[in-house]
């Protein structure tokens, strides 16, 4: 596979970020959320709406399933653009957009690119049935009655079996996510306060071995994140630029029944058949190579851990722990509040919650806010300058890693 040109890690920066939130007392739909976040991003970037050349969105929000949602949004904004498209990388879309925006800047086809994602599942739909109907194979999986946790639990089962990890280990992961979430004003699980391993182990099974506290929850009601990307040259004039040092993406399948039957893959996934190594490893490798950095250079991280075990698998695939050993890093306490490698500082997908497809935008918002020293919740204690923002989409399917930093390389 062709290796992306390393110079791409020195061409673009985020100069504007906007976020927007909704709840039952302040109901907003995905269009309203995206509009609010985009205008905040324009203001933050110091540009006008009409400066945007390219608009990227993710796939249509769960709470507004109209196709061509990207174009619906451009129209809603009365914002004619040269090009607009959905980056349909499932939840990994928004991170993948950052890379695509950098490519457009490098190619010289845009001065400013707007990347935006919003959703508001809890306020508009019942996602339990719909979720599995969307992400399970409609032919070979969905007729058996799985939920999304059931599909992800297959990896949890294998991860425990192959590496001797226990349910108590999964509980500890949940405890640490909650330590950050209780400080974030928008986190869905904030109201529950701090929890213990016993609390997690007493919570009921959703789909074994996953108990309620080991799963992400729906909510907060609605969120949006918007990002304005421009060239490094232009960014030097900006107020608070965040430089894009590297990006990498990888998709290996759509449905789990396809992934487990995968026998040959040009992307290294370990000996096949297996599911405990994901395409995140490849996405991260490309991002590190482009940034000319290693996992040890990362000072803060944002994962896409919708369940305890995916937090662990991602820490390994992103290079922060050897395969099967992420619990050592969890137990070290380095990722907790006050630690020297804070991870999921908004509580992550488990603690902050999943408002829908915008969950990755929330993590990216959190990363930019922490790099700027301006978080809504607890501030990372180590004043991070370099960040790994990773997102996952689908059933372990799509992976997108972005390395961001406060200093131009």
């Amino acid at each position, binding site marked *: 596979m062709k290796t992306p040109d390393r110079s791409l890690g020195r061409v673009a920066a985020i100069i504007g970020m906007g976020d927007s939130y909704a709840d039952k007392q302040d109901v907003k739909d995905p269009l309203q959320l995206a509009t609010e976040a985009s205008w905040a991003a324009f203001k933050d970037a110091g540009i006008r709406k009409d400066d945007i050349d390219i608009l990227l969105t993710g796939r249509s929000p769960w709470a507004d399933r109209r196709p061509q949602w990207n174009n619906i949004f451009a129209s809603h904004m009365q914002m004619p653009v040269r090009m607009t498209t959905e980056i349909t990388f499932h939840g990994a879309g928004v991170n993948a957009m950052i890379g695509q925006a950098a490519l457009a800047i490098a190619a010289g086809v845009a001065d400013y690119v707007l990347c935006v994602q919003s959703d508001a599942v809890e306020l508009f739909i*019942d996602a339990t*049935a719909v979720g599995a109907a969307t992400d399970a194979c409609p*032919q*070979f999986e969905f007729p058996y009655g799985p939920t999304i946790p059931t599909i992800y639990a297959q990896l949890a089962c294998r991860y425990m079996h192959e590496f001797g990890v226990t349910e108590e280990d999964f509980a500890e992961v949940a405890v640490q996510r909650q330590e950050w979430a209780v400080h974030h004003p928008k986190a869905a699980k904030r109201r529950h306060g701090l929890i213990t391993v016993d609390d997690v182990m007493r919570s*009921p*099974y959703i789909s*074994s071995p996953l108990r309620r506290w080991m799963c992400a929850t729906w909510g907060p009601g609605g969120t949006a994140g918007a990002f304005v990307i421009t060239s490094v040259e232009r960014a030097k004039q900006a107020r608070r630029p965040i430089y894009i040092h590297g990006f990498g993406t990888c998709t290996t399948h759509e449905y789990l029944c396809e992934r487990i039957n995968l026998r040959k893959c040009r992307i290294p996934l370990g000996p096949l*058949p297996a599911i405990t190594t994901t395409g995140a490893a490849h996405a991260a490798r490309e991002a590190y190579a482009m940034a000319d950095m290693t996992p040890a250079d990362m000072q803060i991280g944002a994962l896409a851990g919708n369940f305890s075990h995916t937090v662990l698998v991602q820490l390994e695939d992103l290079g922060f722990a050897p395969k099967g050993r992420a619990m050592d890093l969890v137990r070290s306490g380095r990722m907790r509040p006050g630690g020297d490698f804070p991870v999921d500082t908004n509580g992550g997908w488990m603690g902050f919650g999943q408002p829908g497809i915008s969950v990755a935008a929330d993590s990216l918002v959190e990363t930019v806010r922490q790099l700027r020293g301006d978080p809504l919740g607890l501030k990372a204690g180590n004043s991070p300058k370099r960040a790994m923002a990773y997102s996952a989409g689908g059933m372990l399917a799509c992976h997108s890693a972005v390395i961001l930093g406060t200093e131009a390389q």
Partner: protein
Amino acid sequence: MWEQGEFADYTESFPNPRVTQDALPYWAAVKEGRLLFQRCPACRGAIFPPRSICPMCEAGATPTWEESKGAGSIYSYSVVHRPPSAVWRARSPYTIGLVRLDEDWFLFTEIEGRPEDMAVDKRVQLAFPEREVALPVFRLVDEGAPR
């Protein structure tokens, strides 16, 4: 705004498989109580889900159909305690897992048996229980029973 009714079929009755052209022989066999998979005539690899051209080698060969003996082992499993919709609630808890067939291919399927008896690597055998929707499922093999 998107209408919830779009997925009404999935929440009010057991869903039928959305059959693809490639898989028509598979589902025809299921109705007869048989389990089929494909094999590549060039690389000899087992192929599933069904395809019109082998995706594993560069031969571009049309796969041939084979009948599975229906014997395999549990690769992974999960007991569903919170089902996706009302129709599943009466049947829960039920177990869904990946079964590795002895012909070396995998099926995402239901595994019948007591939840506490489930374990990775346990042997399972194909079954076609009477259901609203005909599907191949698996049952734990009683290792102690006479063969």
